[in-house]
């Protein structure tokens, strides 16, 4: 028995290597069961899917597999695979990342966060709302991970002041955990692995052991404090994930959608920064509100009952202390600097130009130039270039005539060295891998083959199809990287839409947004694992809260798709640009395209 246990341990330790070696062998039958080209492409995709799900290789290294396997298997020549890694979608993403690193460099995000918190007050429910609004706003523009990593230390500081010294002794052992979370955030490259998950689980168990010792002392108050902690900590990663869906550059899956649309339907120009925002921002607000209500009810309910009784003097004092903490943090930032102002203005310009390029309901500034030439990538790179030469200190006329002043050269807002360190280059390669995979699907005919296999689904009502798809993807993404999930599903959804004679966006957009709704497990997405690593949350807390969050997300998404999304993307008709693809894939009677979606 002991020998078996030891052997099991050894196998577990070497599991990464085992997955790497055995999966390619296990998938070999696929090569022979399917038509040659389609089979090979499916083999590559499944291989990548398994590697991504198990993270046997770094995600971005797995993303490079098409460069090796597609040429070897005769699917695509190398000269066609490689360009997929740098579409203009990648440059839009790169410019967003560089802008984010400039904001972080000058701590602009921290100032914004503290300012908002000062406005909303420090009652528990309101505090949670303030944290959620701030986090989601920041994660629209920064990465979800960076937003979470920045907000957690602030939340911890506030909570400590609220609950005073009694928590101090308990918190001391977890200082390390919070430092770890901060480090992870700073790195911006950390992707959770199963090892981290196991370590976190053990940490959770430790807390379990500690809890009973505290119970005899005023168990009601203790439970209240613990709930407040959990509510705070769980609301931050959730709002980071929700906020990331609101802008095209907010999270990678959104850009995957854009890139794959251009790959499958070259004529499609419906999705851009402006139109996406108009669709996604209201959805984000709605979900944020509903999420806040749910978390407040689940963790802040005691507060409600306590409030009705009477507010104790001690609690009032605690709230005053919390307010003082926030103000102190704000004071520590000092007066706003020239560099912060400059970054803020450039950031606003960045956003405004992206919105107004081609809003669809009015002509944008892009109409001043040759049609079809200017994309969001042009806007992004233009603004980002300015960051590299705009001075970080206010140019002074006096300085020119003061001969005693030092003649040192001033620094620009951002240096390349800094950008190199903070930009997560692996995600750019990951994006590229997705595009290359999609291209391979199309060229090898695998997409058409899958479409043929999905023929029976033609009788399913589109409304129900959307709901089912979103549910499947939302739960699949709990176990796999959001980006990997959408890369795998989008080509299938595109083909399915054509089979159902439905507007492709009607299926692709819910899938894209749905895979950002990863609320149930720490491994689902980096923000979750960062919050989990603080040690105050158990897996079951996240599962219990997240399950309903997932369901509400799916319902709200369906609501959005059947209301204002119809207008924005003209989902009521089968578009011409999809007809071209449909005609190539299958010969279908054109009459069927007249009516594709039932509207109520």
């Amino acid at each position: 028995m002991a020998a078996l246990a030891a052997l099991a341990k050894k196998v577990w330790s070497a599991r990464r290597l085992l997955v790497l070696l055995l999966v390619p062998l296990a998938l070999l039958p696929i090569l022979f069961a399917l038509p040659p080209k389609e089979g090979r492409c499916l083999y590559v995709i499944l291989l990548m899917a398994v590697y991504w799900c198990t993270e046997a290789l770094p995600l971005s290294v797995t993303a490079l597999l098409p460069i090796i396997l597609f040429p070897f298997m005769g699917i695509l020549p190398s000269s066609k695979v490689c360009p997929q890694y740098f579409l203009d979608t990648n440059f839009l993403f790169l410019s967003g990342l560089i802008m984010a690193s400039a904001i972080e460099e000058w701590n602009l995000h921290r100032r914004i966060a503290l300012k908002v918190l000062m406005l909303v007050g420090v009652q528990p429910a309101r505090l949670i709302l303030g944290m959620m609004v701030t986090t989601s706003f920041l994660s629209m523009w920064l990465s979800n991970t960076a937003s979470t990593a920045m907000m957690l230390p602030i939340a911890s500081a506030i909570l400590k002041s609220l609950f005073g010294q009694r928590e101090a002794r308990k918190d001391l052992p977890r200082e390390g955990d919070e430092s770890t979370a901060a480090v992870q955030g700073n790195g911006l490259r950390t992707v959770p692995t199963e090892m981290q998950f196991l370590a976190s689980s053990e940490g959770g168990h430790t807390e379990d052991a500690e809890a009973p010792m505290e119970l005899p002392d005023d168990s009601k108050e203790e439970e209240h404090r613990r709930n407040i902690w959990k509510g705070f900590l769980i609301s931050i990663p959730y709002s980071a994930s929700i906020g990331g869906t609101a802008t095209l550059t907010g999270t990678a899956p959104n850009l995957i959608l854009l890139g794959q649309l251009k790959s499958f339907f070259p004529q499609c120009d419906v999705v851009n920064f402006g139109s996406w925002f108009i669709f996604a921002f209201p959805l984000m607000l709605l979900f944020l509100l509903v999420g806040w209500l749910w978390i407040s009810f689940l963790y802040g309910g005691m507060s409600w009952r306590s409030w009705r009784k009477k507010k104790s003097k001690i609690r009032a004092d605690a709230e005053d202390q919390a307010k003082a903490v926030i103000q102190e943090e704000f004071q520590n930032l000092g007066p706003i600097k020239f560099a912060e102002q400059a970054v803020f203005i450039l950031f606003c310009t960045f956003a405004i130009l992206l919105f107004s390029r081609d809003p669809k309901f009015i002509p944008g500034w892009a109409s001043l130039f040759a049609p079809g030439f200017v994309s969001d990538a042009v806007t992004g790179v233009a603004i980002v270039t300015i960051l590299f030469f705009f001075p970080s200190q206010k140019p002074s006329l006096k300085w020119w005539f003061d001969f005693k002043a030092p003649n040192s050269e001033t620094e620009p807002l951002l240096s390349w060295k800094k950008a190199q360190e903070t930009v997560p280059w692996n995600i750019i390669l990951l994006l590229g891998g997705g595009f290359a995979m999609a291209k391979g699907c199309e060229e090898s005919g695998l997409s058409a083959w899958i479409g043929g296999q999905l023929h029976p689904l033609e009788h399913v009502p589109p409304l129900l199809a959307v709901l089912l798809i979103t549910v499947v993807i939302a739960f699949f993404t709990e176990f796999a990287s959001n980006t990997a999930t959408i890369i795998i599903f989008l080509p299938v959804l595109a083909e399915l839409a054509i089979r159902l004679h439905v507007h492709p966006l009607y299926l692709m957009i819910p899938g894209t947004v749905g895979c950002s709704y990863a609320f149930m497990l720490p491994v689902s997405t980096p923000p979750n694992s960062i919050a989990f690593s603080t040690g105050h949350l158990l897996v079951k807390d996240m599962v219990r809260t997240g399950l309903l969050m997932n369901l509400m997300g799916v319902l709200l998404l369906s609501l959005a798709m059947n209301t204002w999304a119809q207008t924005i993307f003209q989902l009521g008709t089968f578009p011409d640009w999809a007809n071209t693809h449909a005609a190539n894939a299958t010969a279908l009677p054109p009459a069927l395209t007249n009516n594709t979606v039932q509207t109520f």
Partner: protein
Amino acid sequence: MATCWQALWAYRSYLIVLCLPIFLLPLPLIVQTKEAYCAYSIILMALLWCTEALPLAVTALFPIILFPLMGIMEASKVCLEYFKDTNILFVGGLMVAIAVEHWNLHKRIALGVLLIIGVRPALLLLGFMLVTAFLSMWISNTATTAMMLPIGYAVLEQLQGSQKDVEEGNSNPSFELQEASPQKEETKLDNGQAVSVSSEPRAQKTKEHHRFSQGLSLCICYSASIGGIATLTGTTPNLVLQGQVNSIFPENSNVVNFASWFGFAFPTMVILLLLAWLWLQVLFLGVNFRKNFGFGEGEEERKQAAFQVIKTQHRLLGPMSFAEKAVTFLFVLLVVLWFTREPGFFPGWGDTAFANKKGQSMVSDGTVAIFISLIMFIIPSKIPGLTEDPKKPGKLKAPPAILTWKTVNDKMPWNILILLGGGFALAKGSEESGLSKWLGDKLTPLQHVPPSATVLILSLLVAIFTECTSNVATTTLFLPILASMAQAICLHPLYVMLPCTLAASLAFMLPVATPPNAIVFSFGGLKVSDMARAGFLLNIIGVLTITLSINSWSIPIFKLDTFPTWAYSNTSQCLLNPPNSTVPGH
């Protein structure tokens, strides 16, 4: 008044970035054609690159902004140019290089070779040059120089210490023990001679040593640059050439690949390295070849001391680890696969096993590079791999792979990747806007100049230009023009593009010319005049060597004696009068 100029100097980067676009505005405003718009973009980028007012990679992003706004190319087409097959070859090659660096394999190779060659002054110089050149064929020139320089200085210090011992007549006990008793008598005689001679010989020896140390420093950075030209991935300008040839002449059947480039460039490198060695020897060691090669009294002890330094460093590396063996094997495998994929004189494995309908290889050199890199992320760095996790007793932990993403992310020069892409976008824009064709028409009169003279002059021009500008920027700016010119005068494009690509790497005169020069310069002991004087003749030698190679063995490799079909363009006069030969024959 002087302070005002200092103020201007301090703000020069900002002033350049703001004023240049305005100063150049007359061009597109007066001549409102696509060609002029494209020329505006290129000149603006050229000047920003030369002055480095912006980071090179940021300037390389300009085509994404300017080409769409000026109606030259759509944004979606410009962006595609930033990550082509050639860029992936760059990434894959660098990942392998990073693995070699990470496990210190390059240091082991260097010390091993130096032990074999010996430590006589001339041979020591040759040893360092051979090792540096070989390593910089595969690793970046900068990393090679940074690694070799400390070793060089350690050897120099030991040589100087040993020389002092000899002069003062104080033999080390260890040497006495090793020597036979007759040596003692000779030592006594040496003592007598040393005492009787005045201080003048000592000063002369110190001066000689100083010259030698200068020579050793220069030979390291020069051979790093020379070695980099031998392989396609050795230095970035080589990849720029491949990418531009594939971009401007899409129909060429992969003429420039790893194997064909090596066949052309490696002999050139060997010849140039040998000539450089002779030149540096004459310049820094004098013409006394007998002395340079170690014949003479008193050299034995110095030789043994220097040998001991290298041996000690080699021993400190310890036995070869599993990771080093794995990297060595994968590295050799990579090179073999590259050479045998599509050699040209017989069908390679790429042509036979992975051919498309036209019989061409679907697999490229980039595919091979990524394949080998991928294996490095899989293979563990220790065997047996399982060890106890120090932090948690009883828990087993697998060893990390040979390469981890964090290592790659930190060491990969992503800015060069973008710089490479910017060059391709620039070339594409020139073609789309018609600027290339316009330039070709303007350069038609050059048809009357003998081709070999054209090549010589252009190589010299590029070699001079590259002293002041980044090697990559130089190549990026010149190659599209050369391609247009070659088409216009019915010359094989590679006949002018190849020499200029090599010439761009011949940056020997100034510290700012290339990072290896800057590293050596920053160690001290050298003045700009030292580098300029040594480098000037080396530039001349380099250009002549390149001219020799392009007119001899390169002709059969690339078939330079005919105008290739893939270079025909609609407006080319070559269609009307296809020449039998474009190179002067005997």
